């Protein structure tokens, strides 16, 4: 097999001491920026772009790929420990992960996240080697109607599992949809809801929304209760995953990988949607103890989404390397790096620069192994962060959140937006509105809108284009199923049981 031979050559290239050092620097840096709220892999790679003037291409890409994978690892740490996701792709991890941490299972949550990321990253990189052409043809067969249907599916899947109260979930979702409207409308170039502030013309960065609602809101909420409630003593608990943790984690890892890889390869799929879908799927599939534990810290809800976000990072490289199509912010900047070297990713890259491409793929395997070695022993250590007195800990979070957000665009307007969103996040917690649907609405809403309008524009206004594509039809059918299942289940339950005297609203 020629690609296997080429991969071995790639390992030979990546295993030089210098390149190993670049990989180590990359994964360490990536983990750190993943941990810091606001600063993500995309910005880190962008800032390091100038090294392309001096460093040979193979080394630079090995480092960039390490940063990318490392960011996906690091983002989960603060999500789990402090309920303050460092990246939007690790937002879902916070839902169950932080509950686990509060029950003293922080180390297990961190471990399942780290091992899940390793498993997913390794399988997905292997898929990148063998399945790249097939995945690419799948990805480009996706048209606007299919994306619209996908967004609808994600909406229904997510909103049906995220909140106990549908009304509150929808209210939060609506808030997110409105935030998503802010900025220049992409199809017509008109400004919407910008209040005449030019800095809002490009919309509010999803990072700011995630950091504001989650991290800052959480910090304010904790601060507001410090005087009233005696500090919760968080038990650190056992350090490693027990047998039942392994048993409950391995299937979600694989399912998360299966969701994450193809979605990463889709332009516009991103790392967030597969994590939502994985969470929803695991919750639906949960039986027995897991079902009981959902909402209180189920390990499945950490294992699945974490695997999904790492697998999507590998998936992103498929269209980038084979077509020159960037499907995430980090990939777009890596494309710029390719161009700095005078390389054009695309159909001819594999033929013209096999050493570079296969060296990079080999380094992904190496980087993944490095990340596991780096992160697994650190899991119990990280868990001790919870012993830092709360005032210091949360003051630190506020400072880092503000620094990270300011670093995005170096504008004070972003800081104001961050604090407004932080107050909003505090209020939402205070009055019992879930925060996650707002961020999901903000990510999915604009995508659903733009794709719907594109689909209709391409079809010259004919609405049937939305269902004529088989992919779209399947997604929409699944969405309808997700909506109708609870209705049927209720009906069935009502027939067998005595009707409930009053419906519980909360």
């Amino acid at each position, binding site marked *: 097999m020629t690609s296997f031979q080429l991969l071995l050559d790639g390992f030979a290239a990546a295993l030089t001491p210098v390149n190993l050092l670049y990989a180590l620097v990359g994964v360490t840096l990536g983990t750190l920026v993943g941990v810091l709220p606001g600063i993500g892999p995309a910005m880190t790679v962008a800032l390091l772009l100038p090294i392309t003037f001096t460093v040979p291409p193979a080394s630079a890409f090995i480092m960039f790929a390490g940063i990318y994978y490392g960011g996906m690892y690091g983002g989960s740490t603060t999500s789990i420990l402090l309920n303050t996701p460092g990246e939007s792709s690790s937002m879902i991890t916070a839902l169950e992960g932080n509950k686990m941490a509060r029950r003293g299972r922080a180390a297990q949550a961190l471990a399942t996240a780290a091992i899940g990321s390793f498993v997913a990253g390794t399988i997905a990189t292997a898929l990148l080697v063998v399945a790249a052409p097939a995945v690419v043809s799948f990805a480009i067969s996706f048209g606007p109607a299919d994306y619209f249907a996908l967004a609808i599916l994600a909406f229904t899947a997510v909103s049906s599992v995220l909140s106990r109260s549908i009304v509150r979930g929808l209210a939060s979702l609506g808030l997110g949809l409105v935030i998503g409207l802010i900025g220049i409308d992409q*199809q017509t*170039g008109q400004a919407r809801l910008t209040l005449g502030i030019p800095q809002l013309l490009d919309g509010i960065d999803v990072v700011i929304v995630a950091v504001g609602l989650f991290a800052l809101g959480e910090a304010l909420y904790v601060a507001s209760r410090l005087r009233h409630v005696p500090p919760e003593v968080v038990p650190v608990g056992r350090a490693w995953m027990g047998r039942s943790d392994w048993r409950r984690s391995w299937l979600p890892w694989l399912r998360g990988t299966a969701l994450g890889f193809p979605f990463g390869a889709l332009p516009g799929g991103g790392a967030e949607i597969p994590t939502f879908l994985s969470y929803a799927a695991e919750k639906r599939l949960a039986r027995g103890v897991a079902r009981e534990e959902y909402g209180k810290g189920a390990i499945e809800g950490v294992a699945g989404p974490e695997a999904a976000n790492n697998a999507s990072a590998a998936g992103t490289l498929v269209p980038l390397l084979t077509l020159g199509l960037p499907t995430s912010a980090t990939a777009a900047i890596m494309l710029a790096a390719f161009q700095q070297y005078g390389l054009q990713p695309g159909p001819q890259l594999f033929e013209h620069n096999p050493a570079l491409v296969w060296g990079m793929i080999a380094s992904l395997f190496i980087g993944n192994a490095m990340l596991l070695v780096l992160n697994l022993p650190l899991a119990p250590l990280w868990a001790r962060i919870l012993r830092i007195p709360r005032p210091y800990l949360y003051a630190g979070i506020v400072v880092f959140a503000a620094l990270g957000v300011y670093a995005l665009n170096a504008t004070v307007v972003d800081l104001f937006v961050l604090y407004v969103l932080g107050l909003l996040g505090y209020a939402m917690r205070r009055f019992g509105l879930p925060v996650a649907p707002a961020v999901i609405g903000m990510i999915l809403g604009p995508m659903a809108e733009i794709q719907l309008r594109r689909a209709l524009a391409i079809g010259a206004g004919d609405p049937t284009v939305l269902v004529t594509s088989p992919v779209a039809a399947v997604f929409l059918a699944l969405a309808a199923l997700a909506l109708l299942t609870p209705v049927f289940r209720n009906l069935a339950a009502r027939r067998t049981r005595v009707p409930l005297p009053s419906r519980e609203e909360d």
Partner: protein
Amino acid sequence: MRLRVLAAVAALSLGALTACGAQGGGTSADATLRIMAPAAPGGGWDQTSRVAEQAFKAADPQRKVEVYNVPGAGGTIGLAQLAGEKGNGNLLMTMGLVMVGAIEQNKSNVTLAETTPIAKLTEEYEIVVVPAESPFKTLADMVAAWKADPAKVSISGGSAGGTDHIVAGLMAKAAGIDPKQVNYIAHSGGGEALNELLGNKVSAGISGVGEFAEHVKSGKLRALGVTSGERLPDLDAPTLKEGGLDVELSNWRGFVAPAGLSEADKKALTDLVTKMHDSQPWKDAVAKNGWIDSFQTGQQFADYLNAEQTRVKAIIAEMGLVS
């Protein structure tokens, strides 16, 4: 202890990010020359600025040069900042055709009148393509179908009001179609638009030549026309003029400085940029990126800038893009 490490890393990265303290005006040989890229890292203006930084350093090793980014709103946020630096002879801003459009579209308070034009550096031409499976074999085929029903011909490209959209508007006008009728599918960039073309979801696509050239050569896309005056040397594609549409346009980039410069400052900056343009690193970068060297300074560039503003303003209004 962990936190302390994090703090150090954050401080370092922030230091690198925000290395743009305020400095006073006046050109002097030992002051740092700052180049503002009014866009996020990674895009065309950022790339041009960073290449220029290297070339400046080669042209004058004594001079300190640094690039900083002010992203947002098609560069108009950076433009507004530049306007606040009146008389500063150590500041250049990279800009181009896209900014001219963005000023009109965003109804920016600050316009290019509040800058001192220094030099035009490069140009890139645009290309009109169709999917390989498309029934349009030539530009004439496309124009015929377009005239019959403008809504049925969907054209995918970069952001609304950007260079690609302007080309679509100018083509429609040249073909006798109301530019408002153009069924333009906007994307955040040519890469995203590429996806719909490769998947044969849209009728045609417009982007920079560099963005599509690879796919034209591999046969996945067919080139119907390029927006240059003459055929391009390394691409087998007719010009739009040969295809019967009188449209010529280049996506140019250049430097402007703050307004209120003294003649001496203006001359010093122009001389420095000219030296940069003659340096080997710049020539190498132009060749590597497939840019077209179209160096212009002084009154010549100022006139060019005025003409472009008039033309872009007109077409953006005709396409109904100004609210």
